[in-house]
């Protein structure tokens, strides 16, 4: 019988935690955006006139095809991160795109129409240098791959090796480029820096060396940076120190011809490295004899090489970007030149003559909140009248792609900076105008200043405005109801942003690695504002702090972004309004010294902004805002402001206390010798976390009180010894105020990477067990015991008893990328762990499975307490995936935020993609279901009401009749 009860309990329990989406709810509460990253190579699909594809290979190791009409993805392939998946070269030929991946490790061919893999072969080891397609008699059938010491030749149809040859003298010569013009020969070009160029010509049939020459070039160090092959196989180089162009015929000459730039009437801008661009429309034919020469940041030239003579066809100055494009037989040069401060114009020029083509002007408006244009990708096509038309894809410094059509219509914009989100916050939206009106009326200041009469007038006017807004709302509802649902569009713009009833719509402020900030509407995912911060150091660390929320009308909300250069430690502050993205007129303090730590205090200044303390490398503290009021408050509370610093290179954790003169004193120090273990992460609790219940009710109705120390830090260390028998990870729980080590545990035979979540009275961490070769979860819970030491307030300084520590571990059948816990308004809802898996799923694992009190042997009491019997393995149930089939590639972080509904937690997972959804860890106990039958309940109510009325009447009549009788 006990078994049966257990079974039933299990069944009920299983039913209880099923929290999947229904089919018709797909996309209702969630959205996903897919990105590709910063573009490295792009090819427009030209083999079909009407093709809408552009192929893109990016620095995030993604190869994708975009729809040029809409900017959407046709397909996308995400390779491994790091060097292993690095895309070295993209060669496109007809339907196929050949990629060299992973520093020449793999050669892959993709079918670009559907994105399927044609073939893949593994190449011999050796660092990749260059690759090119090789054609013969007008057809392209091979690809040549040049590596450090070998050149290999592959068939395009199946990737098989045709021949492979060692490069002569590869120890001394740096082979850097490979070239073929379709005449049956392949040239490998190398350089011995500041000595000579070595050129080897191979026969493409059998790889036999046809010709090998060596030419003096003492000025040359890098071929791709300064040379290009032009016209009938003429290697042309440019050198800044001698201010000359050099030409060399690959076929016959043994000497380079020097052409001083001065003889062409040209001059290189001082300090600029000149650059040559040639254009080879088809690998089976020779490159054009026209080429581009860049002499300065905004100075380009179109030159022609004709029988050894260099002629200037056109001088473009000022010209920011220049690019060649070919359609049919025509080749054009697209030139972007600045027009005024906010716009650039793009024009087409015939490459043969340098004449400007008529009606080809395109205006590109530079976004004042975006970066400068960086590259130009031109798609040229022939119009019906045989003239050349074109569209351009402009790539800007902030990794945005903007696709423009003549005469300047932006067809789409892709914000690829969002593929690398570093940190984010969710900010409540402001009140609507009417709500704000009410707030203003009952504002403290207003009440004191105005008299009774004006208050009455104010009240009436605000009531009127509210009535008006309500009627407008009703009208809109009525109007929309008549239209089919698909046509009703709720366009969110920055003007009509307002908080909804349950605060489910928020502003997502995202900070990206490129230094571009975004404000995204959490409901639809549309970008409401963007702001590009230039001069961000390349290895900057960011910390986003919400100093003032929207709750303090009429003060605007305020966010502060701390940008720290990881090398120098120097930091800058960017203060902005998170709703509109505008830079605030509050001037942040200039920080002249490297910053070690920043902390947001619960103190607020007279404008309701929380105080941010910044600690510099001399342990001096500066406050922002630093008004008199703030400084006074700081002086009063200095003795209770403690902070900690972590120096992981020395394994030093130290605590400091603020003094009244804003200097600091060290109060505690813990040193973990870094010969044995190194600190990998230090996790505190989230400051906005609420814990509703102070204890847990046990089976015997007694209460086990939680140890809720808000200052507790979880410090994770990894051993320096990585041998699988001796490696370990350490968990230290340290009080951040007193430096007291509350608990110290060692997980032996374990290795990182360790993912930690620290919340309430528990710490969950995940590690790799080297002994059993599996991922394991461990949970630590802290309890004060059956009695609470001081139930009213927690003070780290007055808590002499160490808490009871319970710990349990489990096997987890997958590796994980990131982990976070759900967060709700009041902390009543049970907690779930959100786990980002490398497969792209986001798993919502109930915390009750990670509970060290799960009993080994089931007893009456544990059953009473609803504890699940211990099972060593945590099982992944498919219905726990909150993102059903919406794979989120390369999840790097999960952000959770409470909403106005206690049951609902907002979740944003970011990585290469961004996914936003809501989760209901205890189901929607405070919301009626979507398909709730209002009609039925109201009709039943009415029916009951009338039934009572009628029966009452009938009863009265009956009573009356009886009385008469």
């Amino acid at each position: 019988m006990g078994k049966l009860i257990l079974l039933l309990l299990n069944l009920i329990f299983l039913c209880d935690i099923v929290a999947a989406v229904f089919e018709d709810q797909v996309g209702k509460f969630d959205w996903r955006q897919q990105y590709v990253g910063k573009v490295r190579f792009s090819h427009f699909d030209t083999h079909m006139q009407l093709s809408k594809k552009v192929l893109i290979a990016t620095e995030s190791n993604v190869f994708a095809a975009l729809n040029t009409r809409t900017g959407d993805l046709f397909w996308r392939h995400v390779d491994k991160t790091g060097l292993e998946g690095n895309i070295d070269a993209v060669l496109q030929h007809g339907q196929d795109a050949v990629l060299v991946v992973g520093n020449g490790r793999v050669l892959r061919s993709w079918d670009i129409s559907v994105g399927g893999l044609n073939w893949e072969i593994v190449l011999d080891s050796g660092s990749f240098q260059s690759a090119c397609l090789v054609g013969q008699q007008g057809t392209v059938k091979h690809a040549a791959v040049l590596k450090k010491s070998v050149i290999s030749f592959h068939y395009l149809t199946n990737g098989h090796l045709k021949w492979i040859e060692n490069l002569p003298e590869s120890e001394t010569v740096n082979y850097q480029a490979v070239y073929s013009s379709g005449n049956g020969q392949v040239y490998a070009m190398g350089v011995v820096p500041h000595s000579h160029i070595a050129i080897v010509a191979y026969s493409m049939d059998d790889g036999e060396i046809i010709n090998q020459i060596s030419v003096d070039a003492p000025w040359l160090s890098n071929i791709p940076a300064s040379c290009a092959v032009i016209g009938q196989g003429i290697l042309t180089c440019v050198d800044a120190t001698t201010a000359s162009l050099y030409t060399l015929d690959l076929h016959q000459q043994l000497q380079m011809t020097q052409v001083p730039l001065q003889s062409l009437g040209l001059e290189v801008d001082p300090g600029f490295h000149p650059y040559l661009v040639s254009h080879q429309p088809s690998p089976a034919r020779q490159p054009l004899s026209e080429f581009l020469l860049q002499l300065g940041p905004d100075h380009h030239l179109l030159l022609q090489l004709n029988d050894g003579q260099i002629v200037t066809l056109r001088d473009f100055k000022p010209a920011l970007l220049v690019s060649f494009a070919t359609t049919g037989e025509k080749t054009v040069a697209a030139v972007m030149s600045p027009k005024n401060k906010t716009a650039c114009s793009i024009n087409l020029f015939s490459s043969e003559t340098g004449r400007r083509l008529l009606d080809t002007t395109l205006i590109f408006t530079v976004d004042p909140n975006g970066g400068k244009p960086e590259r130009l990708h031109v798609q040229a096509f022939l119009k019906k009248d045989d003239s050349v038309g074109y569209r351009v894809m402009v790539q800007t410094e902030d990794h945005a792609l903007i696709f423009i059509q003549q005469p300047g219509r932006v067809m789409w914009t892709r914000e690829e900076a969002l593929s690398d989100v570093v940190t984010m916050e969710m900010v409540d939206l402001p009140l609507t105008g009417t709500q704000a009106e009410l707030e203003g009326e009952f504002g403290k200041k207003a009440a004191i200043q105005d008299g009774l009469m004006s208050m009455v007038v104010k009240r009436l006017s605000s009531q009127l405005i509210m009535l008006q807004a309500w009627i407008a709302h009703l009208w809109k509802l009525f109007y929309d109801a008549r239209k089919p649902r698909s046509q009703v569009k709720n366009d969110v713009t920055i003007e009509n942003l307002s908080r909804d009833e349950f605060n489910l719509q928020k502003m997502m402020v995202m900070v990206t690695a490129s230094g571009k900030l975004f404000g995204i509407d959490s409901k639809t995912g549309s970008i409401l504002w963007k702001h590009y911060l230039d001069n961000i150091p390349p290895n900057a660390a960011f910390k986003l702090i919400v100093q003032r929320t929207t709750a303090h009308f009429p003060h605007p909300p305020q966010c502060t972004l701390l940008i720290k250069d990881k090398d120098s430690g120097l930091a800058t502050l960017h203060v902005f309004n998170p709703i509109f993205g505008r830079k605030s007129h509050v001037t942040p303090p200039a920080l002249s010294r490297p910053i070690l730590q920043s902390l947001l205090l619960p103190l607020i200044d007279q404008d309701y902004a929380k105080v941010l303390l910044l600690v510099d490398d001399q342990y001096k503290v500066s406050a922002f805002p630093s008004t008199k009021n703030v400084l006074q408050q700081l002086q009063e509370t200095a003795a209770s402001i403690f902070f900690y610093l972590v120096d992981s290179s020395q394994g030093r954790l130290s605590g400091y206390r603020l003094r009244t003169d804003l200097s600091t004193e060290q109060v505690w120090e813990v040193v973990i010798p870094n010969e044995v273990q190194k600190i990998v992460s230090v996790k505190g609790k989230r400051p906005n976390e609420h814990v509703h219940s102070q204890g847990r009710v046990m089976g015997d109705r007694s209460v086990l009180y939680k140890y809720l120390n808000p200052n507790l830090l979880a410090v994770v260390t990894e051993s320096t010894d990585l041998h699988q028998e001796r490696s370990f990870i350490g968990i230290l729980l340290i009080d951040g105020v007193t430096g007291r080590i509350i608990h110290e545990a060692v997980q032996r035979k374990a290795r990182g990477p360790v993912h930690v979540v620290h919340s309430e009275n528990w710490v969950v961490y995940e590690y790799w067990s080297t002994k059993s070769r599996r991922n394991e979860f461990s949970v630590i819970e802290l309890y004060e015991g059956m009695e609470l030491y001081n139930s009213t307030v927690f003070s780290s300084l007055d808590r002499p008893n160490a808490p009871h520590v319970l710990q349990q571990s489990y096997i987890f059948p997958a590796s994980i990328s990131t982990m976070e816990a759900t967060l709700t308004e009041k902390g009543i809802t049970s907690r779930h762990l959100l786990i980002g898996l490398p497969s792209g799923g986001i798993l919502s694992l109930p915390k009750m499975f990670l509970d060290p009190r799960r009993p080994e042997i089931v007893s009456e009491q544990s059953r009473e307490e609803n504890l699940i019997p211990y099972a060593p393995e945590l099982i992944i149930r498919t219905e726990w995936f909150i993102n059903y089939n919406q794979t989120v590639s390369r999840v790097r972080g999960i952000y959770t935020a409470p909403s106005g509904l206690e049951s609902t937690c907002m979740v944003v997972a970011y990585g290469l993609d961004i996914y936003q959804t809501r989760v209901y860890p205890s189901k929607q106990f405070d919301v009626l279901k979507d398909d709730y039958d209002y009609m039925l309940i109201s009709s039943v109510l009415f029916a009951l009401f009338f039934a009572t009325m009628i029966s009452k009447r009938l009863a009265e009549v009956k009573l009356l009749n009886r009385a008469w009788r």
Partner: protein
Amino acid sequence: MSRPLSVKVSVFFTVLLFVYTDFVCCNNGRRVGDSLETELSGFSVPLEHSFELDDAGKFQVRGSLLLKTGREPSVSLMQNQLSEEDRAKLKEVAAVDGLYRIRVPRVFLQADRQTECQMEGHLTAFVRACAMVESHLSDVITLHTDVSGYLIGVSIVTIPGACRGTEVEDEVDLEVFNTTLSIMAPVNAPGPETALFLERMEIETEKKGKNPQEQKSFFAKYWYLILGGAIFLMVSNSAQPPSGGGREQS
């Protein structure tokens, strides 16, 4: 804590006696001399304290920690009395809510020679001076080591820990430290308990095997319940259509 020790029992031998337990209460009135005898596999390091009105760190010797190295390190403490001057100062510091700080040098407990065990730097901790005064100098000092025996941290709490502002009249209360000292090594975190779970599973399957009644399949056991449920469902379904149809029209 658990082992009360008479004040009068003289000191050092008792300490040695109780050295095998990890903690020891020490409240002696002897002044620690320089010539401290150490055990064969042990050494002593100073325990220093500092309490100043301006919170500057002026550390003075409070006592000396006798550390026994080896597999199971243990520790004992000999400490001085507070002088008249110090008592007055401690009270003053407590009055302005200053800090009472202690520090120990970083040591390595597994070293063979004393020269190897000392390292650069100190480990520090603090309590509020008022807590120290109000608890009549009864404190709990814990030394924490890491896996390999390096001392990584020290912590001090007083019992009771609160500052209630009660005046300590008797000077004698502030004379002698009443210290509970312990040394803590990291605990081994448990791995997943597979063996026990499997054992339990086996027992359960065995039980099932013994009891043929249990071996019956789910359907065989509860067919009447299922059948009843199915009939009930069918009956309620056949009654449903009129009302369901009505709802759809509305």
